[in-house]
């Protein structure tokens, strides 16, 4: 069962704020914090299981942090390590070296799909895009990887 949003929020809010403070700091981090949990709230009733809620919320936070930085420095080429890493996860460690070269959105979709087994609905929620677009990003990422590693 998906936990009540209150429980989810209480469990992850400190870590999310700490992460956003490290990426943005100050008022920008606070705005991004609110946007992160509002975006999660919007997608929350479409979640089908509660297996990867931490990865999910931190991915949402990282997308918002990236967008915020982009908005302020539109000419910067952002390194995709801006995507949040949960280094302790073996699935991610196995995938990370292979996905380094992907554009951030495709990389996030591939890692969430194949590293964490999230559904496309959840990935769509995390990347603030539709289920179909999430599916497309993941398969574009996989195609690109096949080409690179062929």
């Amino acid at each position, binding site marked *: 069962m998906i*936990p*009540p949003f209150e429980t989810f929020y209480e469990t992850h*809010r400190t870590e999310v704020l700490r992460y956003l403070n490290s990426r943005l700091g100050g008022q920008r981090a606070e705005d991004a914090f*609110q946007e992160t949990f509002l975006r999660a709230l919007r997608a929350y009733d479409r979640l089908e299981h509660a297996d990867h809620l931490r990865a999910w919320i931190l991915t949402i936070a990282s997308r918002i942090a990236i967008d915020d930085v982009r908005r302020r420095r539109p000419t910067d080429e952002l390194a995709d390590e801006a995507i949040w890493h949960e280094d302790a996860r073996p699935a991610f460690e196995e995938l990370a070296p292979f996905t380094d070269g992907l554009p951030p959105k495709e990389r996030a979709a591939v890692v969430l799909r194949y590293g964490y087994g999230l559904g496309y609905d959840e990935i769509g929620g995390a990347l603030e895009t539709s289920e179909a677009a999430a599916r497309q990003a993941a398969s574009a990422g996989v195609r690109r990887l096949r080409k690179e590693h062929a």
Partner: protein
Amino acid sequence: MTTFSPELDERFRAAAAASGLLDVAFDILPDTPVGDLLVGVTDQGVCRIHFDPDPERELESLARQFGPRVLRSAKPVERVKLQLDDYFAGTLQSFEIDWDLRGLPAYNQRVLAELARVEYGSTTTYGALAKLTGNPRAARAVGTVMNRNPIPIVLPCHRVVGANGKLTGYAGGLDRKEKLLRLEGAML
């Protein structure tokens, strides 16, 4: 070290409520004359009042019944809170709040709707309520519906007593039932 400011927390909770995305907003009203109360509201009205709340259990029950987007947020609950304050102060006799009984069996909804008509300061019996809802011999079933009333106080199951005038039972404990009836000046 990340400090988590109460202002940031309240700001998010208010924004979440304003977004219209919550299935249930709830708040805990501390130290009412009948103890701490958990009050839950949906976009349709009050859906839960719970004595001695064990939030974890209550929130899961609310999530099962109404959806997982259950969050504490004071603003949506304020209207109910103010009316409860007035009720406990003795200045309000009839709540002007819609209620949300979605998910309850049709029979429970029918009995609770009948219960809502029992007036402030008066009492009725399980048998009388059974008769009004179509089955005079269903006093025991009515008792069960009262016991599972999700919105006590607003839906006044404390006004239902045994045929002999005894208080009989109350999910929140007989002390509370007696307290509420005395507050209303009901003849005991």
